[in-house]
């Protein structure tokens, strides 16, 4: 597909990394459900193992179907390559452990998915990797938290669940001033809404379980490298990245930054992280995510359109105390959202109900189209109560730092008719209102 410029986003979403199968002529990407791939001869085998040739050996390390997904997501993000992983959490773990070990330090936004907070705050601490949490908008806090052993800055494009927009250009610049890369969880925005590399981020990962897959069918993650961070220069100046810029005993003294000037991170992540931790993706999962990505532009446009209608409806309801959607003037990230997210702020947002915890429960249980479950980014609309589910391990202080209250309800707006979603919410709000009336009557009777 040669020309004066690369194909556009929608074309890449359908074609990047894939051509008709040369063996069969199959137009759709084949699912290569094979653990391993035959060698032409002994010399071919040895040269594949020794990185003298490119190719597939064993599906934990690479697989032809997964490779199409990896190339496609990298193309959509504007990166140099990607690695498909067993889950979004596996992608985050792979990113961190490729760079960090015992004695390392991470500076992270405090507005995180609860699972990511668990990994950083509790689990990695057991392995000697410490994390300092700062509020995403506390720019001085980001700068002050960086230590000589800091390996990574980390945040979500839209912080979960309050949707704080991460000021990627500013945070990335702080990191780069100190020779530290910025890793971004771009799950809520997808490359259709924002390409973090264009704003200075160095690494991006997705829980592909969400919008990339889009149909609530599979668990998967993708880790993408921009190829922009100069590991050699940072290591020479700050001594932080021996993992990429010094000989690695686990592969015959290979120096990954010599092997690949712009792909060193992915080389080590694949050759060490996938090899040793083994959190790879099933080719069947990769195929399903590819099906989702083919319609990503169409779905994201509809997700955003529906969300705007729902937000507008909720903003007029007396029982709704506040809505955390950055397109609203009232949101603290409104100005940043206009700059970084001109196409929209996604379809996951939270709002606070007035009234009691019982009213919140009544609201969720009265919904008929919205499904009460722990996921986002499905084509179907979803609802959850973060304080009792996704963020239940956080104490009150941590919840407050993440912008969550006991009355916070999170919605993930799907692709249904917007009017049907609004009717469902209208009905549930009435039920919640009546629950409040009954509670008041009971209290009065006492």
């Amino acid at each position, binding site marked *: 597909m040669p020309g004066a410029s*690369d194909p556009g986003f929608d074309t890449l979403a359908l074609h990047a*990394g894939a051509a008709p199968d040369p063996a069969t002529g199959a137009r759709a990407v084949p699912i290569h459900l094979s653990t391993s791939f035959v060698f032409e001869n002994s010399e071919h085998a040895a040269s594949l193992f020794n990185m003298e040739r*490119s190719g597939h050996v064993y599906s934990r390390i690479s697989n032809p179907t997964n490779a199409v997904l990896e190339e496609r997501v*990298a193309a959509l993000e504007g990166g*140099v*390559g990607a690695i498909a992983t067993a889950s979004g959490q596996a992608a985050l773990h792979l990113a961190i452990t490729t760079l960090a070990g015992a004695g390392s330090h991470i500076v992270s936004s405090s507005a995180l998915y609860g699972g990511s907070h668990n990994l950083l705050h509790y689990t990695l601490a057991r392995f000697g990797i410490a994390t300092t949490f700062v509020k995403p908008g506390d720019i001085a806090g980001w700068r002050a938290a960086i230590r000589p052993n800091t390996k990574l800055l980390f945040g979500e494009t839209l912080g979960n669940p309050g949707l704080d927009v991460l000021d990627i250009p500013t945070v990335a610049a702080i990191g780069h001033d100190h020779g530290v890369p910025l890793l971004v969880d771009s799950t809520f925005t997808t490359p259709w809404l924002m390409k973090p590399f264009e704003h200075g981020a160095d690494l991006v990962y997705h829980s592909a379980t969400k919008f990339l897959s889009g149909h609530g069918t599979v668990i998967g993650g993708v880790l993408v490298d921009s*190829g922009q961070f100069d590991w050699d220069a940072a290591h020479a100046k700050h001594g932080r990245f021996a993992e990429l810029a010094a000989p690695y005993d686990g592969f*015959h003294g290979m120096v990954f930054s010599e092997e690949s000037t*712009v792909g060193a991170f992915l*080389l080590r992540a694949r050759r060490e992280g996938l090899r040793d931790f083994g959190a790879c993706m099933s080719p069947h999962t990769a195929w399903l995510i590819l099906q989702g990505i083919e319609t990503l532009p169409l779905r994201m446009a509809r997700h955003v359109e529906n969300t705007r209608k729902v937000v507008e409806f909720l903003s007029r309801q007396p029982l709704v105390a506040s809505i955390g959607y950055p397109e609203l003037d009232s949101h603290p990230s409104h100005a940043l959202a206009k700059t970084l997210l001109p196409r929209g702020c996604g379809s996951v947002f939270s709002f606070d109900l007035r009234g009691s915890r019982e009213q919140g429960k009544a609201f969720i249980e009265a919904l008929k189209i919205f499904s009460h479950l722990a996921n986002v980014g499905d084509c179907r609309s979803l609802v959850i109560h973060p304080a009792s589910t996704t963020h239940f391990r956080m104490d009150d202080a941590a919840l407050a730092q993440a912008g969550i209250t006991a009355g916070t309800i999170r919605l993930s707006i799907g692709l249904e008719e917007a009017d049907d979603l609004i009717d469902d919410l209208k009905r549930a709000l009435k039920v919640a209102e009546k629950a409040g009336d009954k509670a008041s009557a009971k209290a009065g009777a006492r």
Partner: protein
Amino acid sequence: MELDVGGRAAYAYTGGKAFDAALPCLVFIHGALNDHSVWTLYARWFAHHGHAVLALDLPGHGRSDGPPLASVEALADWLIALLDAAGVRRAALAGHSMGSLIALEAAGRAPDRIERLVMLGTAYPMKVSDALLQTSQREPLKAIDMVNAYSHASIAAKPSYPGPGTWLHGANRALMRRVQAQQKGLNLFHHDFGVCDRYAGGLEAAAHVRCPTTLVLGARDQMTSPKQTATIAAELNANAPTQVKTVDAGHVMLAEAPDAVLAALRRAVA
């Protein structure tokens, strides 16, 4: 490894093995705004199959000290000086694009020292359009994107380079941007394209080449069209056996067709 060439540091990747000048030496020379990393798979293969390998960073590119040299002739002299610094008397040269012109000129200047010549993604003359030269001067990042798009024949080349999961368009773009950014105060893209555009000594160099030569051409190369090689191939063939091998790829054949290019290189230096 690092060599001293004329008082300046020159970097050469040796393929994952210590350099042994006693072995048959193969030198890889990259093209405009590239560095040694476009050759690493090939360098590793030959280093582990009986060769001493030097995959170079040209002056002002990657890990080699600047300044960049202003002509193919100067770069050829630098290359011969680098062989001296490495203790290499005779070597095979494989160059891609701008690197192929440097290899040709070096083979013409030191015919007794060059055993094999492999010119990949080549053309002579390697003229650059005025429009692209001007864009590279005024808007180098835009010009990088244009060249990157023209250089690829596919958005799905397999098995990718250096391994599966690499988005070749993104990797080449990032490499060109990195190499460009490393030269502070100099537009290296415009400089390199000027080096290619100005080179006028190809036929004279070819007349002096005495070693077997192979031209490896991309059937879908839009940067250096296979049609632009007939004259130089005939001149080379007049003095020493010259073969042309075509691979199914665009200009960035090293990344788009690594297996076919390796096979061509193995035949060329056998």
